[in-house]
């Protein structure tokens, strides 16, 4: 289908992306995920300061027809939440890797990064 998979990000099997800058990790869902979900009409995200755990749900995105959990790509503390995506959930569809970002996490340990997928592996996953 030719979905964009930015090469500078890491990915989860649950279709989140993670962009690492020093000890901060920005998180969103992939273009593939937003397409599969359809038009996003509601986003529920944690509060700043909340702890998240790698592989555990940290929020939800909902289309008119379905609810999907969001899974944390890394453990840590939420330091920033994209308030504008809560007001305009369609940003997740329009710009999943940009304005549609969801949260920024201050990670507990860089070790967990090793369990994330490089773009080439994620590409294989969605081609299955």
């Amino acid at each position, binding site marked *: 289908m030719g979905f964009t998979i930015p090469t500078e990000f890491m990915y989860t099997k649950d279709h989140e992306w993670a962009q690492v800058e020093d000890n901060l990790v920005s998180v969103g869902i992939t273009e593939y995920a937003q397409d599969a979900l*359809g*038009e996003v*009409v*509601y986003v*529920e995200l944690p509060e700043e300061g909340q702890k998240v755990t790698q592989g555990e749900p940290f929020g*939800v995105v*909902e*289309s*008119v*027809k379905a*609810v999907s959990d969001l899974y944390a790509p890394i453990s840590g503390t939420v330091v920033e939440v994209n308030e504008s995506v809560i007001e305009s959930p369609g940003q997740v569809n329009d710009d999943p890797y940009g304005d549609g970002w969801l949260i920024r996490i201050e990670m507990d340990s860089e070790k967990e990064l090793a369990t994330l997928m490089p773009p080439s592996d994620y590409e294989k996953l969605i081609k299955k």
Partner: protein
Amino acid sequence: MDSLKRTPLYEEHIKANGRMVPFAGWEMPVQYRGVIEEHENVRKNVGLFDVSHMGEVFVSGPKALDSLQYLTTNDVSKLEPGQAQYSLLLNPNGGIVDDIIVYCIEKGVHYLVCVNASNTEKDYQWMVKNNKGAVIENQSDRWAQIAVQGPRAVELVAHVLGPKHQNTETFEFGTHQGPGGIWYVARTGYTGEDGYEIFLPNSDAPRFWQDLMNKGNSLGVQPIGLGARDTLRTEMKYSLYGNEITDETSPLEAGLGWVVKLQKGDFIGRAPLVALKESGVSRKLVGFKLLEKGIPRHGYPLVSEKGDSLGVVTSGTMSPTLKEAIGIGYVAAHLSSEGSRFFVQIRGRNLAASVVKTPFVKTKGE
């Protein structure tokens, strides 16, 4: 796992980039361009729905009327040729086997019963088991069905089939002679908009669909998937089998008392309904809006402020027309009047909701 069935319009869905999903044993399009766009197009222009997965059971012979009177809740004797009625099949406990539409082709002796796809085999077996001497045939595999819905539906069908069906009243139907046999063109629907549901032989379906698409281009026609079909009917608070109505729900709780004619004589499920009418229902189906951010979904609990159980959500969505979260659910009868407040439990949080008038959306077709 049985392989999924395909309707005669499968190729049309693929051509239109339909996203195909399994539904009730069929491979059906859930969406083409997007649920919201499709929904809005039905409210504004016109949309085509492939509902060929729905079941067609014909009831005929000298005992057709007697059998249908016993099998269904509405009064079939009131139907003249060319008229249709919404009705129910009940079990002996007064629970709902299915919701159906009965079409009178020839008074007393020839009727078409349209049933839900997921229930076709169950309904057919049920009807045969409780038959009072009619000839009952499940012809679902021979019939396609296309719904044309929206404010421009009448104009579109006139472009393709001629003006004949423009004056058909709501819940009436006419016939059309197609290449593959007779068609039934009914002024019915599941969206709240004006329009038709058209039964036609499988072999005639692709050409008719293509004609509707081509001639409807200037009217803004679009194919509509199951996703928008669900949001459209939810905005009207129309029941969906498996959600609002099941073998365990009573028509009196579901707000379907208007299709139950207790005076017409005996029918399956009548006695428990007479008793329930006497004692009064303990829960009622209501439409509500969420007063806080979130979306109610099928199965979420309805609770009091303290968290005591009051009922359950049967359907919910973000209304594409209202841009508000709407829900349908069963709630304790004393909380069923407009303005009553309760809470929807969503992922452990209680979000306030208020009962509103339904349909949620006003349409010209309703």
